[in-house]
């Protein structure tokens, strides 16, 4: 599973990093999200799916 954050859509709600802190990192300056680990380890997949389904801006996608 690969995960990406659409930086045009992300508005810094920070939910993804609360749910999957090992995968998403928030920039110090504005709290917008970036992916630290594009390839999602199997034991993180459930959290990443939850992050996808929790993002208020629908900015996270997986394939």
């Amino acid at each position: 599973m690969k995960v990406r954050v659409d930086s045009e859509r992300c508005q810094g709600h920070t939910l993804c990093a609360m749910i999957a802190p090992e995968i998403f990192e928030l920039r110090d300056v504005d709290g917008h999200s970036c992916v630290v680990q594009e390839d999602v380890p199997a034991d993180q997949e459930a959290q990443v799916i939850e992050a996808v389904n929790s993002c208020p801006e629908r900015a996270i996608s997986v394939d």
Partner: protein
Amino acid sequence: MGADDVVTDDDRKQNRYHFDRHAPEYRGRFEAITEEMHEKCPIAWTETYGGHWVAAGNREVFELARSADRVSNDHDVKGERRGYQGISIPPPERGKGSTGGFLEMDPPAQRYYRQALNPYLSPAAINRWIPVIDELVRACLDEKIESGRIDFVDDLANVVPAVLTLGMMGIPMKDWVVYNEPVHAAVYTRPNTPEAERVAEMHKEMGRHLVGQFFEIQQNPRPGLIDEIARIKIDGETPPFEDQVGALGLIIGGGFDTTTALTAHALEWLSENPEERARLSRERDTLLNSATEEFLRFYTPAPGDGRTISADCEIAGTAFREGERLWLSWAMANRDATVFPEPNTIDLARKNNRHSSFGIGIHRCIGSNVARTVFKRMLLQVLDRMPDYRCDPEGAVHYDTIGVINGMRKLPATFTPGERLGAGLDETIERMQRVCDEQRLAEPVTVRKAQAKID
């Protein structure tokens, strides 16, 4: 355009609903009204306040809120553009002629403000303040812990957000009393009453203090949000003074009453559900985040925002005309059963909680990280130090209406008394001011990264 293409107003506005967010009935029948609108008219035209659209459905609110190219926040106070009236429907009497800062602006100017202020308000920036927040909460609880009685609004939830907001702005924290009452009272006081005159007078006093602080900091800079706004350039130019003051008013308005409202409602619910309270305390490591988001969703402290359609367009299946007013209901979007199973039930462990309580799109609440952090730090200390508290339902006072803020005025509670742990509030505020000044805590995170140290 051919005759066949003409969409009449009656066609466009065939979904009609009498919607008055300022009526007490909207508070009293919120769930029934929400369900009815979701079922019949997730976007409706209402005749109230000169006529405007109301978006209640989650998908509709989401799509409209994300369409900043066709949906404007502009408040054109001086009539220099298209006369749009910002985010309040109707425009408020008090504050006519002043703007709500960058929340009543469109890009690109709005973006300059947010980029300037984000480094003071990001999660990394707020984490630096946690030891200060904890001390303020500790002192508030110490003031009451021996008596076994507290009013969670007056003695805690009104205090900490106000003191912290001033500290972040660069205003002496001890001056919180100048700001606190007018900000809260302005939200819940009925217009045209003697009380409203008193509140208006306090509001003016606060305004004078704020402008005084702005000039003082402009001449003798000290770190904080005011300093940043005093130095801001929009495309190389200093913005009008009114816009700068509007931004300061926005920070105060956003920072005070909202977090208070969230905290009071959550504490009230936890008192009514003591088993859930014990569970939240016990399982805080896994539940605190989801419970916070759930309280945000369910109580939606800022229930909605107005907009103006800035181009003829079709969004979410409705044809809009330039100049029409629109109300985006974050609160109703948060109860949409197609997105939130059992939307009218609080589930502390709720997953996939895509709530819109901080707004959606480019105007997302810039203080959301402050709100969450302050809420969590207050809640945790209450759970630890007053675990058996019971709110008195007779004494609890909710705002009569939820048109602006879904808030509370009073929330008295009793609990088993405990021991004080340290100094009282005034002395603690003084000490925290020294910490703030000496460690330059109000600098942006780009300048100062370390967390506050308290001896």
